[in-house]
């Protein structure tokens, strides 16, 4: 509730997010139009609209980990309230997940609003061919994102230039994990990089559930591997956060902004 109150206390920020998200979509759509067959003028005519819209959802979801969870610690650090935050009689993880819940809620609203806006201006809707499998993929993705976000939140106690790293990771994710285009577009030696990053498989599974596209690995293996990766990432994130915090407490670097 504190996070939600803090968010709605800055109406310009809320309004800005609602304006910028669809604007990013238009910006990319116009750029891509140049490559579409000359007989069609927009990506939706060439069948890419739903693909890109879903790609934007993947990007927004990933941003909840980087800027939702990861930045929690950095925000409190720069505001000078991190010590009070850590001295509160609640688990660190609970506090961080609380922040994630706020970002997830507001991002879901933004996704819904953007989809509706694009539908109203004639963009069409994303129809999921298998909603249950899509939700399963989404659930696995979110578990992995929380783990990743926790690791990132820990990292902010070590690295102060958070914004640079967050941006590089974010853009790297957009390009390497195939959020906006399938990894088959990536030339072969670089495609191996995509294939060792877990997020590639969550995106692939959700896209498979939405559009019945072929999966990178055989379907059962990909679901099993993704489930194992989700649990592993959550555990690694949790352990890494605790270890980094312990080390930062010893060095007295928790509140160094």
């Amino acid at each position: 509730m504190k996070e939600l109150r803090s968010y709605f206390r800055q109406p310009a920020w809320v309004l800005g997010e609602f304006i910028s998200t669809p604007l990013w979509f238009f910006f990319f759509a116009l750029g891509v139009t140049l490559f579409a067959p000359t007989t069609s003028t927009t990506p939706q005519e060439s069948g890419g609209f739903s693909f890109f819209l879903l790609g934007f959802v993947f990007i927004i979801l990933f941003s909840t980990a980087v800027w939702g969870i990861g930045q929690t610690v950095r925000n409190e650090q720069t505001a000078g309230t991190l010590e009070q935050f850590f001295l509160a009689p609640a688990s660190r993880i609970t506090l961080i997940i609380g922040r994630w819940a706020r970002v997830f809620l507001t991002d879901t609203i933004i996704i819904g609003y953007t989809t509706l806006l694009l539908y109203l201006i004639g963009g069409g809707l994303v129809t999921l061919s298998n909603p249950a499998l899509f939700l399963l993929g989404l659930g696995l993705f979110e578990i992995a994102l929380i783990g990743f976000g926790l690791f990132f939140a820990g990292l902010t106690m070590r690295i102060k230039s958070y914004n640079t790293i967050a941006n590089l990771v974010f853009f790297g994710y957009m390009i390497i994990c195939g959020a906006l285009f399938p990894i088959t577009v990536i030339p072969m030696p670089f495609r191996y990089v995509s294939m060792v990053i877990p997020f590639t498989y969550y995106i692939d599974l959700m896209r498979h559930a939405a559009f019945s596209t072929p999966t990178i690995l055989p379907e059962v293996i990909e679901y099993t591997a993704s489930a194992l990766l989700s649990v592993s990432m959550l555990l690694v994130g949790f352990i890494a956060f605790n270890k980094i915090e312990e080390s930062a407490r010893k060095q007295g670097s928790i509140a160094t902004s």
Partner: protein
Amino acid sequence: MIRMETTSGVRAILQAWAAIFWKGIKHYTRYPGNFVLYLVIPFLFTLLIFGMGQFVGGNNAATNFAARTGTTNIIVYEILGSAVWMTSWVVVEDVGVVLRDEQMKGTLEQNFLAPVNRFTLLIGMSLTDVVITTGIFFIVVGVTLAIALPSAFLTIIPAFLALLVGLIPMFGIGFLFAGYIIKFKEPYILTQIVNLLFATLTGTYYPVTLLPYWVQFLSGVLPQTYVIDDMRRIVLANQTLVSLYGSVFILLALALAYPAIGYAVFKQFEKKAGVTGEFSKY
């Protein structure tokens, strides 16, 4: 530290500019990550658009692109747009937000009480960015041309001259934001939207003719539109600045108009802030 030996005349102005310039450079060298980000982002966005384009266009992506732009050199075409976008990004982020940063640190009043004219102060703040944007341009465009179009490498010089003329109106736009931000205090979301609008309206990754006619009117009043178009013509179509005199004249006109409008708006906001005590509000 630069100690001002006089408070009036040309020498005082130069000393003030030197002091503000070095302060800005120190800030950049203290946080090199920001500069690295400005260098990397143009490549990342270009790769992203390129990847999406390959997916949409398949084997004919380059042919479709050439049919609409007149060139098959996708990377150079997109990088030139990216580099100009990054330049305007730096100007909006730095010149627009710098006074808000001073306000948050509690040092805005000291800056405004210094025996330095506001215009001198704003120009001084822009000088660091001239160096930073020059660095971004030469590194990003230079590396791209050296790899993707070495035969046109020397066109980087006239392309840079086009950018240099375009920087003046861009700084004028920066002054406009500086005043607005003192008043409304929400710089980050505003700059994000403005940067995105600039990218969309100025044809960063596509010709502006692709935009609806009424949007093209908005593109026509933004200096970046002319800079991007001129650079593409110079680098990819072997044109010279002389042959592009029409758009150069427009850029020069904008170079007179924007700083004058920006400064006038800034002074209005400053006047109001002085009456209402907005300067020291966090």
